[in-house]
């Protein structure tokens, strides 16, 4: 079997992506509200509540500091949820993938469609939070528009990693491990709630390897009106996670479904 062959990339993924879009369109409003609720609670609760007791963080108010972290972690969470719970439902519970693969669409096309879809949906979440950040007046710089280009990268990186987890899952319970062992620690270690520099050096070293750190490192300066340092490095790390995660997911799905 061609288990280790590179993923075949073609536009055949588009109809599968459109299928997911059509489902989403039926539930778009509750879906967007759901995406907004969680990060909004953090921004309002932590940002204004906790923030009112804090001095300035990195030269700005805590809530303005937190905004970039929330944009990145919401995008991460949205891509992760879509590529785990929703993709698993389509693959394993509804057998939608089986139906698609009886048509002239290959497994690689389906996996690519799921990745691009997870990224698309996460971009919507990120944009929704960004809109709130602007409405609350937490960002004044036109540089913030560049975050729109960052969001798809975050979505692709975390969507790809989550798909690799989905390929190994036997049930929904399995996803808890990924949240407990990776997503939650990342939310705490990667500069979402406080600067990475506050961590002990060993944790800073770990954080340097985690994708969310690099997403926040680009988003925060942009929202605060500065040009980020080492953009190329951060972008490359995110691209590397996306590529490695997608390749791993492709191999694992082939082993699972084409045997």
């Amino acid at each position, binding site marked *: 079997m*061609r288990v280790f062959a590179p993923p075949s990339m073609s536009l*055949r993924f588009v*109809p*599968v992506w459109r299928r997911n879009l*059509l489902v989403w369109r039926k539930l778009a409003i509750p879906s967007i509200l759901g995406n907004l609720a969680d990060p909004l609670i953090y921004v309002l609760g932590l940002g204004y509540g906790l923030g009112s007791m804090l001095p300035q963080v990195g030269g700005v108010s805590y809530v303005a500091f937190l905004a970039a972290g929330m944009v990145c972690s919401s995008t991460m969470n949205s891509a992760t949820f879509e590529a785990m719970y929703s993709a698993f439902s389509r693959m394993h519970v509804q057998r939608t993938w*089986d*139906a698609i693969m*009886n048509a002239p*669409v290959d497994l690689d096309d389906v996996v690519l469609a799921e990745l691009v879809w997870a990224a698309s949906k996460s971009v919507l979440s990120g944009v929704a939070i960004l809109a709130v950040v602007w409405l609350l007046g937490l960002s004044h710089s036109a540089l913030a528009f560049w975050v729109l280009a960052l969001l798809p990268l975050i979505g692709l990186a975390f969507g790809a990693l989550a798909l690799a987890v989905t390929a190994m899952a036997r049930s929904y319970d399995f996803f808890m491990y990924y949240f407990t062992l990776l997503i939650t620690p990342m939310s705490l270690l990667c500069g979402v709630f406080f600067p990475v520099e506050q961590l002990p050096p060993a944790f800073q070293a770990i954080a340097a390897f985690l994708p969310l750190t690099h997403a926040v490192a680009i988003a925060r300066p942009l929202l605060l009106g500065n040009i980020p340092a080492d953009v190329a490095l951060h972008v490359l790390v995110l691209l590397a996670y996306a590529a490695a995660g997608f390749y791993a997911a492709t191999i694992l799905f082939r082993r699972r479904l084409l045997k």
Partner: protein
Amino acid sequence: MAVLAAHNLHKSYDGEEVVAGVSFGIAPGECFGLLGPNGAGKTTTLRLCLGLTDPDGGSVELMQRPVPGEARPARARVGVVPQIDNLDPDFTVSENLLVYGRYFGLAERAIRERIPELLEFAGLTARAKSRIQTLSGGMKRRLTLARALINDPDLIFMDEPTTGLDPQARHLIWERLKQLLAAGKTIVLTTHFMEEAERLCARLAIMDRGRFITEGSPRELILRHIEPHVIEVHGDGVTEWADGEAGGLATRLEKSGDTVFCYAADPAPLLASLSRRTELRYLHRPADLEDVFLKMTGRELRD
């Protein structure tokens, strides 16, 4: 020119050979039945033919294309009705057809033009906007069949198309399959309903433990493998009767639970014997495909 040809297919899972040297060819317009108990390797054979898994040995040509190498373009001319219902639960009846047509790369307009005739064919015109959850089992099967026809395929694979349906729904599916055959389509059908195979298939193969154990038309198989008369006997003392008197009168006897199946070319001596044993009840009938199937694959349960 065969629309499907398999040569010496082999496939193993965890050291167990699920498909163990299967070869066959299917001509255009034919309805070919693949019969076998659960776990015989039928579904794996279909998956190999569609290029959904790679064989450990042997080769497949589907629509004159090598599979799995050119499985994708080959599948463009093929329709599949899978065993497990996998209609899209988030969509209505007609959205299911629309979305499925897009997977074939068909033009949006062409699909939308085709949907009404497919709904008509499936008897679902009135349900075009219904959600899948509101459909009965028979309606879902008909929709799955309509979905398999969205690309106007030359060859249709059907994996146990009527399993779990009531007789009315089953007869309607059979009716539709006959229409498709009359329209020149080729059908490959797996089933464990002998009646279905006898009604629809011009040619069939019985598969067991990964191999084709016999092949031919339903009539040929009955003539070749089984005595023409069957007498099913049950009642108190049937074992004693079978072990004694009946042994010399039937060509072959099979016991299953408290019923004895007597197979014979000439039923008269058996019937004469039974007329003297009023405590025994019996049913005299011509041999059918199910008798062939049970003779070839045994009566023990398969799980």
